[in-house]
């Protein structure tokens, strides 16, 4: 018996209604298809729909022969596949992480609306991760952006195979509906992870960057209480700052705590409700979406130039007091 969904070894996926038709799109992760239920209306994916109501990454009915000592090795392999896939399609993928209720979906809706004005040619789509329901994907679709819901069942995080599957569906869907002929232009993919400040930190999805959202209603010590997430992120969005007058939230202390865990962490303060600070967030997004941002060597060359300039400044500073 399969310990993931409770189905028999025959691979029939007992007890799962509306099984996805197996299909192929060039990736070696066939086992996912046997455990996933696809919503026929929007193509939303529901993992953990089997008898055990849990989806365990790295486990499969069709066992592979390859042995990897790294426990997360299988996930990393598929994440790298995703990364190459995103790059070849000109997609900048961002993994959005936070605890439940930090305002990720509201922020995404506001971001999509703002991007329509700021960069009308930039296509945006969303993969929504939750344990249950398609509420969030529906909210995103209301903005006009394509969205696909991934339900993890009892799972506490998205993993790389789920994202690979969701992206394939999203991509298929977009091609069907693409009447504008700019399918090869750069686009932005937001992956809204399951609301959880612990587990998703460990699972690489193939994203270009992890963005952690923290709202000021949550308490300023969260970066120190949940350090792994803040260590893994490149950017922290401090959300709901319009509520600061009503709260005893020390912004400086919060940022200091986050930088203790991750000295290189960038921070943007904003409010998705009032629009304050959204400009800086859009600037950051546009920078990440610029074609050269996808070129790792160009990024590293720019970083080397930056560091050399800082070194030259420091040297000049050392010389001048002596002179």
């Amino acid at each position, binding site marked *: 018996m399969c*310990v*993931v969904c409770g189905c028999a070894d025959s691979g029939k996926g007992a007890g799962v209604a509306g099984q996805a038709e197996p299909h192929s799109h060039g990736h070696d992760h066939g086992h996912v298809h046997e455990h996933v239920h696809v919503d026929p209306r929007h193509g939303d994916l529901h993992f953990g729909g089997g008898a055990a109501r*849990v989806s*365990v*990454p*790295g*486990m*499969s009915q069709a*066992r*592979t*022969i*390859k*042995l*990897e*000592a*790294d*426990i*997360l090795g*299988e*996930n990393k392999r598929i994440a790298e596949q995703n990364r190459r896939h995103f790059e070849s399609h000109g997609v900048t993928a961002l993994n959005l992480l936070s605890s439940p209720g930090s305002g990720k979906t509201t922020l995404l809706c506001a971001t999509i609306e703002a991007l329509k004005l700021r960069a009308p040619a930039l296509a945006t789509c969303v993969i929504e991760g939750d344990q249950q329901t398609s509420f969030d994907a529906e909210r995103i679709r209301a903005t006009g952006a394509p969205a696909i819901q991934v339900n993890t069942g009892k*799972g*506490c*995080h998205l*993993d790389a195979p789920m994202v690979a599957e969701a992206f394939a569906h999203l991509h298929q869907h977009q091609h069907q509906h693409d009447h504008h002929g700019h399918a090869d232009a750069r686009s932005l993919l937001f992956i809204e992870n399951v609301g959880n400040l*612990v*587990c998703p*930190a*460990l*699972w690489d999805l193939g994203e270009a960057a992890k963005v952690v959202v923290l709202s000021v209603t949550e308490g300023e010590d969260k*970066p*120190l209480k949940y*350090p*792994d997430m803040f*260590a893994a992120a490149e950017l922290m969005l401090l959300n709901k700052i319009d509520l600061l007058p009503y709260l005893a939230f020390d912004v400086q202390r919060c940022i200091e*705590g986050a*930088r*203790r*865990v991750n*000295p290189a962490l960038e921070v943007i303060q904003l409010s998705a409700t009032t629009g304050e600070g959204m400009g800086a967030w859009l600037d950051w997004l546009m920078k990440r979406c610029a074609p050269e941002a996808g070129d790792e060597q160009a990024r590293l060359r720019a970083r080397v130039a930056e560091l050399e300039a800082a070194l030259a400044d420091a040297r000049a500073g050392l010389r001048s007091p002596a002179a």
Partner: protein
Amino acid sequence: MHEASLAGGILKLVEDAARREGFRRVAALRLEAGQLAGVEVRALRFALEAIAPDTCLQGADIAIDEPEGQAWCLPCSATVALSQRGDACPLCGSHQLQPTGGTELRVVDMLVEDD
């Protein structure tokens, strides 16, 4: 909670090896979960024990080593001990630390038996 997923990943590694090497039962399994790997060792052990029945891990003696966290301190230009993220450098008190060790999460080796 993610320890259950990790236990699933471990079982898969072991079962793949069982198929490749042709063994039936694991007597002892040794894992490494570094101090900075983001894993609660007790939860991982619990998840492994929960998943073991009716698999080749049933009855296996599970040892989980916890390599100590290490980081490179930029101001000190030295490797220092770091038991948890967010702690300061024990030498200079700076937080400009880049973890370099104790982040590993892997299956080290196992003692297997053929029935």
